[in-house]
Structures are given as structure tokens and as C-alpha cells.
């Protein structure tokens, strides 16, 4: 029975991978209005943010409202270390790894004074941190160019093939590969003593501590990993957009968006975090964008705000969250353990 279940799971995973890997071929055959691959990279990048948030909030139970700050730190680190207006000019992969490392270090620094906080208090501190980082980036004009943003930024080049905004399929595969590797590694961590310590800390901090888990050190590691993943996502985003963007692109909305993704997908589940990102960001940057394209032909020049699909965004998000909480509060793909049986 357990073996059959495992074989089924493996088969399903293989199917999902095959669809993800082969879909771009199908996409090329579709008319332009239905092509979605050029819009997919931000969705996959947000899936990575979802994984990062899932580590802190889903696995360890630390409510984190400042992930946007770490996306910003990743984006700016990548921009400063690879852009040609600075002397560093690291190769693409060097910039991404350094962004992850600096993001992790900042995450650990944020965790140091907050190790003894839980729940609401931690949420307030992370929220404040998100605002502080935006202000710092805006005011360190000499280093970060203030509100101008840093550009131009390059995409990766693989075996002499330069990936840029004109090769969206290339971007899709690069980010998909990074997402796949990171999900696999994260799954391994979750199924190890480290992951067990995270879950234990979420369930009962005192009991975990009495069983030998050092809560401070574990939270520090959680924050560092979470921040590192978000920073890598930030670096990819900056590289994809060709610019770090301005600091206010990384505001509280982004953090809340990430949190809703994780909740919709199912707190504490890796596939859930990815699915949540695909749904929430997918609605925002694919479905609404396509509807907007369609509507602009029909109702060109109309000044009615309701005819602009970008304005539907928050209504749809709000409705999704309310419906989720009402009908499936554990998320679309909750972690397997809570699905077994309930007392």
C-alpha cells in the first residue's frame, strides 16, 4: 500500500515536471494572445519567494511580514555587484550567489534581536524591518542611486548563449531549473533532523527545547535560509527586469502578496507554496494582463475604472482569501501529515 502510494506520488511528480518542461513547445504553436511563457518568469520567481516564506512561516511558525525587504536586498546586491556602472562586475552566477549570501547574513542579523519574540511581536518587527530597508535604499543615494534604480542588468549566458528579454523561453527554463533544484534541496532539509526541529519548534517551543533543540539557533538558521531564498529570488527578478527598480517596488504589498500565496497553497508544504504563487501571481500578471489586452480592443478609450482589469486585483485577492478561509482553511495542498486523520 505504502509502496503503491509512493509510486503514484513519483509518477505524479514526473508528470508535473514533464508538463512544465514541454509546455513552452506547445506555447510556441499558440496564437500570441494565448502565449503565456513570456509572462511566466515572474510567477516562478515568486514561487521561490513563496518557498522562502514557507520556511519561516510554514515550517517554523514565525509570522514574517518583511520578505519584500529581502527581495530588495537581493535585487540591489545583484545590481551593485554585476552592473557595469560599478567596478565589481561579477559574473551572473556570482552575483546571484552573493545576493543569497548577503540576504542570509541580513536575515540572521534580523533574527538576533528577535529570537525571543513570537507571533504578533515578531510580525511587527519584520514589518518594521521591511520599511527600514526601503528607506535605507532610498537614502543611500551615493551607493544605490536612490529612486532611479540601477540598470542595465544582464541575464545569464549559458554556453555562449545570452539570455535576455528577447528570449523569454530561455528565462523560463533557467528559472524553472533553479526553482526545481532549490525545491529538491529544501525537501531534503525538511525530511531531515533539521526539518523535524523546525516543526517541533512550531508545535511547542518549550518541549522542543527540552528535547535538545536550541530555539535561538534554529530560528536564526530558519531566518537565514528564508532570507537567502528571498534574496536569490530578488536577484533573479532584477536580472529578468534588467533593473533593480526603485525601492518602493519592494513595499509591504509584496510581503502580503507572498503571505497570501503561502496561505492559499497550504502553510508548511513545498508544492503548496509553489502552487499558491502560480495561482496568485498568475491571476495578477497573466490572467488580468490577458484580459486587459482583450478589453483594450473592445473598450478602447473608456475611462471607467472597472474596465481596467488591473483594478480588479485586490478584489480578487481578497475574495480568494475569504473563500479559502471559509472552505479550505488548510490551503489547497496542505502538508501530508495533517491530512492523515484528525481526532
Amino acid at each position, binding site marked *: 500500500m505504502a509502496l503503491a502510494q509512493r509510486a503514484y506520488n513519483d509518477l505524479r511528480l514526473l508528470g508535473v515536471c514533464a508538463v512544465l518542461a514541454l509546455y513552452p513547445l506547445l506555447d510556441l504553436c499558440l496564437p500570441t494572445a494565448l502565449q503565456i511563457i513570456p509572462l511566466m518568469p515572474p510567477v516562478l520567481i515568486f514561487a521561490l519567494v513563496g518557498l522562502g516564506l514557507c520556511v519561516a512561516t510554514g515550517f517554523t511558525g514565525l509570522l514574517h511580514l518583511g520578505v519584500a525587504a529581502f527581495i530588495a536586498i537581493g535585487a540591489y546586491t545583484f545590481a551593485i555587484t554585476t552592473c557595469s556602472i*560599478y*567596478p565589481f562586475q561579477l559574473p551572473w552566477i556570482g552575483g546571484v550567489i552573493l545576493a543569497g549570501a548577503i540576504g542570509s547574513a541580513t536575515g540572521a542579523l534580523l533574527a538576533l534581536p528577535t529570537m525571543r519574540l513570537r507571533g504578533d511581536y515578531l510580525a511587527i518587527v519584520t514589518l518594521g524591518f521591511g520599511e527600514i530597508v526601503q528607506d535605507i535604499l532610498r537614502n543611500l543615494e551615493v551607493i544605490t542611486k536612490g529612486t532611479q534604480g540601477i540598470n542595465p542588468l544582464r541575464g545569464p549566458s549559458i554556453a555562449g548563449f545570452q539570455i535576455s528579454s528577447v528570449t523569454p523561453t530561455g528565462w523560463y527554463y533557467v528559472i524553472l531549473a533553479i526553482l526545481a533544484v532549490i525545491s529538491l534541496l529544501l525537501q531534503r532539509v525538511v525530511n*531531515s*533532523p533539521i526539518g*523535524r526541529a523546525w516543526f517541533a519548534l512550531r*508545535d*511547542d517551543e518549550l518541549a522542543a527545547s527540552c*528535547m*535538545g533543540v536550541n530555539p535561538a539557533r534554529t530560528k536564526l538558521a530558519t531566518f537565514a535560509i528564508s532570507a537567502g531564498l528571498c534574496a536569490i529570488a530578488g536577484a533573479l527578478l532584477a536580472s529578468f527586469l534588467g533593473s533593480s527598480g526603485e525601492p518602493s517596488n519592494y513595499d509591504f504589498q509584496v510581503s502580503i502578496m507572498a503571505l497570501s500565496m503561502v496561505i492559499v497553497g497550504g502553510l508548511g508544504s513545498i508544492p503548496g507554496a509553489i502552487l499558491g504563487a502560480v495561482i496568485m501571481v498568475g491571476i495578477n500578471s497573466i490572467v488580468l494582463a490577458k484580459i486587459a489586452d482583450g478589453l483594450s480592443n473592445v473598450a478602447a478609450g473608456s475611462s471607467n475604472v472597472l474596465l481596467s482589469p488591473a483594478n480588479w486585483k485586490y478584489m480578487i485577492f481578497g475574495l480568494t482569501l475569504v473563500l479559502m478561509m471559509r472552505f479550505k482553511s488548510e490551503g489547497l495542498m496542505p502538508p501530508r501529515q495533517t491530512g492523515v486523520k*484528525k481526532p
Partner: protein
Amino acid sequence: MSAGDIPLLSLHNITVRFGGLVAAHNVSLSVSGKQIAAVIGPNGAGKTTVFNCVTGIYAPNAGTVSVQGRDIQEALTWHVLCKSLTTGLLCGTALMLSVNAQSLWDAAINQLYVYEQPFDWLASIKAGAAYLHNQEYPLTWGLLVSGFLFATAGSLTMWQRTRHTPYTAVRRKISRTFQNIRLFRSMTALDNVLLGMHSISKTHPLATLLRTKRFRQQEERERQAALELLDFVGLEGCADSLASSLPYGSQRRLEIARALASKPLLILLDEPAAGMNPSEMGELTNLIARIRERGVAVLLIEHHMKLVMGISEHITVLEYGEKIAEGAPDVVKRDPKVIAAYLGDTHDDH
């Protein structure tokens, strides 16, 4: 035990105060290896407080706890000292650099870098150093030294606060269960026991990521040991059930299995028989005896006199935070102070 006369656990004149309330006053007790000992007393006598002192949840206001003759607090080592000094140095440097960040960046990078020309890093470092050298000293040395002092003091304080914590107590081979069951409810029974091994399992994070052969072998070994422990407490076949879905008595036994997973020398059971029916209590008595046969000493808090008097070799009686009697069950049972404490004699001198 290596030395017969050194007790496994000894508490010397422990006093715990919460504001004006004295929860434990000058309590001393000791447990020797492979012994079953008990702490009894009316509600609010300070029994759990004593347990919490041993496991580092509370820090006693006075008195010492020692395990195998050695203080349970971690000693100050060179390692700790070096770590604090390094932290201090890093923080001091970071403080100095961040306060001067913009002008330093301007002097060392913006003024020297010509777009798309090769960059001389040595010249940049020299320019940066020269800039710092020309600054007023409160902005350079002042910040470095104050950051260093602040962070060193801070990390030493943190160390001082964590000298005796629940997780250091487990490392000293003392494990416990809780009065109100505290299992990891969203984890399976097996995972609960596996987590109990946290203090003895050594895995390198890198080995986790690579799933090395050694890592997988160790996981398998730990899994077997955990299954064996579940068998031992009578929970065979429940390995994959969620902890929260187990019946009450099984949850109590799972907590014992989890506590045993850290291979302790002493296990503290806080009211293990609370809420159990007579047949479950019989099984529990049997289980406690078998725990001792594994070479693990047991210290229990219990209200069921039948259970305590039946299996304990040594009993300590607390009332209002003070020790009023101790000794073998027969002696304690006849002690007039104990009888008064339980039956509420008003002529007692308390």
C-alpha cells in the same frame, strides 16, 4: 556508575522566588544512578518548580544543581570567549563602516572608477583607509571601540543567560516529560521520538543536502531505535499516527518514549499517572520498573500514593516550597509531618 558515592543528580539548597512568593526554599535532594525516586507533596508545594530548575526552565535564585558531581551550568571556555570577542570586533567594524558608508563609498569607489575602465582595488582600499584616517576620531575609532565593547558585553550576557537551559540539560543526560502533555501534535509518533534524539544525533547540514550514504545509514539506525522505543512503551503499530490522534494514555507513554530517545541517565516524570485508570496505572508501574532496568534512573512527581509507595526507593516530601521529610517509603509514610501536610493538621508549626 563510575564513582559509587557521587549522586547522579544533586540539588543543593535551591531557592526559587517569583516576586514575593517563595516557590521553593532551601530544597536539597539527590538521586543516585539507577534509582527510582519520587517527590510528593500537596498541590502548590513546589514540585514542578524543582523539576523546572533542574531542566533549566527556571534559574534558581540561590543554590546549585549538579549532575555527576559537576555543576549543570556550562563552564566559561576559551571557545566562548573567542566567539564573543570576534562578534564584538565584527560589530564594531560594521558600525564604523555603516556610519561612514556613503562618503566612504564615494571616496573609495565613485571617485576612482571610470566607466568600463579596469579598476585598481589596491588604490581603492588605500583611498578608503586614507578617508577614514582623515576623519574625526569619534567617527572612526570611537565607533569601532564602542561597537566592540557593546557587542562583546552583549554576547557574553547572552552566553550567561544560556548557561543552563532546557537544551543544555538534555546534553547533560537529563530528560523529562510534562504534567500537561506537550507532544508535537502535528507530527507522527515516530517523528516525535526521532526528535527526542536531537541532542545525540550529529548531522552536518551539507550531508543533509547531499543525502550521503552515511547520513542515510544514520537515519535508518535512528528510525530503528525509535521503533524499538515505541515497542518498549507499548505503542507498536502507532508509528505513523499523528501524536494528537492517539488516546490519552498512549500520549503519556509516547512522551516517555520521546524523553528516553535522548539516551538519558535520568528521566524526570511529571505526574505520569495523571488521569489514568487503574489498569493503565498498572502498566505504567511496570513501564517505570522496566525503564530502570534499562539503566535509567527515574525521578517522579506523583499524587497516586499507591504507585509512589509501590515503586520508589526514596521519597522527598515538599510542602509550601520546603522539604519536610525524606527517606524510604515506609519511613515517610509514618512521618507525622507528612500526615499533617496531607490531612491538613492545623497544629503544624507552618
